Every structure is written in structure tokens, then in C-alpha cells.
């Protein structure tokens, strides 16, 4: 599934009087790997949530592929068919095995059990954890859990992969492996990838950067250098 173009126009998100995102506009081309940077509280997580339809903008529009995300009446379907999420805290369900965790988006999509298992094993192979498919998340290291979370995010063959501080809780070796997986996902599947991170390694892997300061986009033009913006 090729990556989706992402268009944000004048996106604002406010909680009462508190404006978290203020008139943010940008375009991400299909297959790009974008570094979303900014200090804590600058609005990175909120922007990812709006792009992934976990939340709605107070005003403005967001188009992902052919979908007007800001107007979605059935966001679950959009998330299931178009978006993959990787969270800082991985959010694996502790009572399910690694394979069952990877299968969760496929369960929602109604994929048959045998096919689900096959695809979960294939994805776990891609992240180097094929032999841990029956383990519980509690038996894995932090880096391994994040790799499982990436496999889960890719299970639905998303056009847009959103990652929020995916290496925030990992050491440098584990972080490097996660970055390689995100880059591989983009290269292998053509997925559009937007990563919010403080990690200095992000600059080495991203095509370009979007930088937020106090909810406003201060840099993000397609001809800007990723190195200077993502640092």
C-alpha cells in the first residue's frame, strides 16, 4: 500500500482557553519520513493525534490520502485502514501474547485467524522477533516491546505511520534498531512516516523536519534541511 499525502491547513486545537496547536499548515508527500520536533508541551503529540483521528481539531482541515480526517464520522475505520501508531510506552496488552498483540488491527479488520497468525509471524520476522511470538510482553525487554509495537503498527499495511517518541525509553542500541525498522517500513512499503522525537538520531534518518514551538509551526517547508530542523 503506497504512502498517503498529508495536508494540514490552518489546524488549531484548543482546550478551553488553552491553545495547544495554533494555525498549523503543512504538506507531507507520500513516502516521506518526517521528523516532528519541538520541546515538551510544544504540541507534537496533539498534532499526531489529530493526524491519526484520535482527536479532532478545533478548526482547520486535515486530509490524509482521500480522507478528510477532520470530518470523519467513523474514525475507527480510518484508523484501521489507513494509520499505524507507535507510542512511546508501546501500549502492548499485557494479557495477550506478542503474536496476539500484533494481530489486534487485523482482528478489527475481520481477517481470518489463520491469515492473522501468518501475517503476525511474518511481521515479527521483519522486526527480528519471530521466535518470541508466544511470549507475553512482560517477558520482553523495552527494545523488544517497541519492535512488537512497530510490527503491530504495520499489521494493517497503513499508508501513514505515526510514531510518538518511539525511542524515548530506549538505550542507544535499541533506539538505532527502532530507527532502522521505521526507515525500512518506509522503504519496503512506501509508507509515509511522521515521527515525533527528541532523539538526535532522528535527524540522520528523516527526509525533512517540522518544528513546533508553543503550538506554532516555525519551520517545515519541503526545501528545509532535516538536519538543522530535527536537531
Amino acid at each position: 500500500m503506497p504512502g498517503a499525502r498529508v495536508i494540514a491547513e490552518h489546524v488549531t486545537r484548543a482546550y478551553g482557553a488553552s491553545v495547544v496547536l495554533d494555525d498549523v499548515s503543512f504538506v507531507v508527500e507520500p513516502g516521506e519520513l518526517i521528523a516532528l520536533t519541538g520541546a515538551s508541551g510544544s504540541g507534537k503529540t496533539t498534532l499526531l493525534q489529530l493526524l491519526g483521528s484520535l482527536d479532532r481539531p478545533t478548526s482547520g482541515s486535515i486530509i490524509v490520502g482521500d480522507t478528510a480526517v477532520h470530518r470523519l464520522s467513523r474514525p475507527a475505520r480510518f484508523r484501521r485502514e489507513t494509520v499505524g501508531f507507535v507510542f512511546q510506552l508501546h501500549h502492548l496488552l499485557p494479557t495477550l501474547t506478542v503474536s496476539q498483540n500484533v494481530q489486534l488491527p487485523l482482528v478489527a479488520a475481520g481477517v481470518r485467524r489463520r491469515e492473522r497468525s501468518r501475517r503476525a509471524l511474518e511481521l515479527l520476522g521483519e522486526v527480528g522477533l519471530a521466535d518470541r511470538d508466544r511470549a507475553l510482553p512482560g517477558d520482553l525487554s523495552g527494545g523488544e516491546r517497541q519492535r512488537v509495537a512497530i510490527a503491530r503498527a504495520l499489521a494493517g499495511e497503513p499508508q501513514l505511520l505515526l510514531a510518538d517518541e518511539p525511542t524515548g525509553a530506549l538505550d542507544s542500541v535499541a533506539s538505532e534498531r527502532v530507527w532502522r525498522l521505521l526507515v525500512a517500513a518506509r522503504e519496503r512499503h512506501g509508507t509515509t512516516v511522521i515521527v515525533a522525537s527528541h532523539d538526535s538520531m532522528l535527524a540522520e534518518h528523516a527526509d525533512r523536519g517540522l518544528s513546533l514551538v508553543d503550538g506554532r509551526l516555525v519551520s517545515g517547508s519541503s526545501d528545509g534541511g532535516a538536519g538543522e530542523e530535527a536537531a
Partner: protein
Amino acid sequence: MTALFAPLSSLRRRPGRTLLTALGTALGIATIVALLAVAGGAEHAAGEFYSLGASDLGLFQKAAADPTTSVLSTTLIPKLRRTPGIADATPLLLLVGEVSRAPGAIVFGADPSGFLTQRLVFSSGRMLTSRRQIVVGDQLARQLHLAVGDTLRVHGRPLTVVGIYHIGVAYQDQGAFVDMPLAQSIAGMDGETTTIAVKLGVTERPAAAKRTIAQRFPGLTVIADAQEATRAGANAQLVSNAALVIAVLALLIGGIGVINTMLMSVVERRSEFALLSAVGWSRWQVAGRVLVEGVVTTVIGAAIGLPVGVLGADWLVSELGAQEFVAPRTTAWGLGRGLLVGVLIGVLGGLYPAWRAARVSPAQALAQG
């Protein structure tokens, strides 16, 4: 099918919460099964009481709360015998609480030559022939270790046991028969009886006989079968209604328990439901998962509650000292109702928590970790 995805894994890996929820349900179901069994036994016993075992019809005073409070004149008996379709009629006077060694035993005052006493089958001894004699049901004899020749006091009067019988009607096998004039003397009901048992002609239909008796004797209640008896007796009806009320209360208590436990579980697992929502599960799918978990948990609760209820019914009757009156009746339908109630508790108790789970905001819950 989404809701069916690995629900057992989730329940198995949270054994403490699963067990607590299941036990809450089990308690409700056990209560219901036990109460239904006791109520069923009480209704059956009341039915036997009214239908008088071997007779075709039992006659009572209209509006009497139960058979022991009915008062009928014995002058009705010859009139009844002359009524078309009636082959015989015989008085029966019920005395309760007159045997101090077995307060639950009922002593029946009867005509020794009447058709009811003629049906007693003696395992030892014979039918009574005088006012100072008594014949005892085999269960009461076993309970009091009585044999022919022993003395049994009724209302303080020493009576000689001359026979031990079995008739297959619980109340009568756990009771005793004395001569009618003695029973009338003890009850202070000279010329009266509590009940009249009626035997119909071979070709007579009970419904037709009931109509005839109702027309000719408007002050009588005519009982033809045990179920009708249960409906007719105010006390039996009270037992039945009380059982229903308590069953509904048990359902409510069980349901509230399940709602509470499942709601706590939903609050505790907000991030889990948020994650499911984030990876594309619809609200219906999330709610379905919670509901399925609720039903599976309550079915586990039912599996515990059903046998506990059956054992609990015997225990309840024993603790209440009512084993002489009531033998709990556990029927397949009674157990089925318990199971049905369990599933209902699971579904109804899971509805609100499921609704709450479906409304978890993924953005907020995941941001809170």
C-alpha cells in the same frame, strides 16, 4: 467475531479479578437456585397438603389462608355423598404442633373406616380402632424411633402406637392419624373438620364435579390438583411470591455486583480500550469485548453457583429446621433458570461498563499512559 478474540486469555491472566467477579455472580445464582428449590419444595408440599394425596378433590372453607385454618361442618358430608358424581366423602382434621417431640409433624384426625385411611399400607401393626390409639407414618416413626406398642403423646395425651404405615405422601408419612372425635376434642372443633376429602365416581370428570359442588355449596373451595392448590392457598401463594421477590432481589444484588466489578475493571483498563480504539476497533467491537468477558465470567460463576445453590437449598432447609415440611426440589428447569439468570446478569451487568469502555477517549487515555 472481534469480541471473541482471546477473551479467555484476558480472563485467565487476571485470575484474581475473574474469580472475584465470578464469585459475585455465583453467589447471586446460588441464592436463586436455592430459593427456587426451597420454594418449589414448599409449593409441592403445599400442593400435597391441599390435594390430600389420594383423594380426587379436597374441599376447604373459602378464603381460608391454609388448610389448618379452614372450618367446615361435618353435616356437609352426608349431603356431599348424595351429590351426583361423588362416590364418597370423608372428613380430615389437621392438627399442627401437637406432637412435642416433632413439632413439624401433622396429626390427621380421620374416620378409620373412611376411604383415605383405607389406603394406608401398614408395614407393621394395623389400623386404629379406638380413641386412645394412633397410627404413625414410617418417616415419623423413624425420626422418633417408634415401634408398635410404644406411646406417643399428642396434645399431652398418651396414645398407643398400633400401626406404622406408608402412603407415599410426604406430609402423611411424616405425620400420624388419630380417630376423628379425638382430633375434634383436641382442636375444640366438635362437629367440625378442617377439610373434606372427596372420591369421585369412576366416570366422573373432576372439572364437572367441581362445577356441581361449587353450585351446590358456594362456601367451599374445591381443589383438584397440586398446582391449583398452591394458587388457592394464601400461605402457599405467599411462599411462592416471597421466593419470587427474593429471587429478583438476588438478581439485582448479583447484577449490581457484576456491574461494580466490571466497571472497576473498565476503569482500570482504560488504556487497554483506548489502545484497541487507536488500532482501529470500533466502539461496538470494544463494547462487545467487554460484554463477552462479562458473559464468560458469569458462566464461570454459574458453574460454581449452580451446585452451591443445590447444596445450599438442603443446608437452608436444615438450618431453618424445616426438613419435616419441605424437601427442596431441584429441577432441570430450576437449574436452567439459574443459568439463564447468570447469563442475563452477565449481559445486563456488562452493558453499562461496556458503554463506558466504548466511550474511552483514546487520545486522553493513551496520553495518560
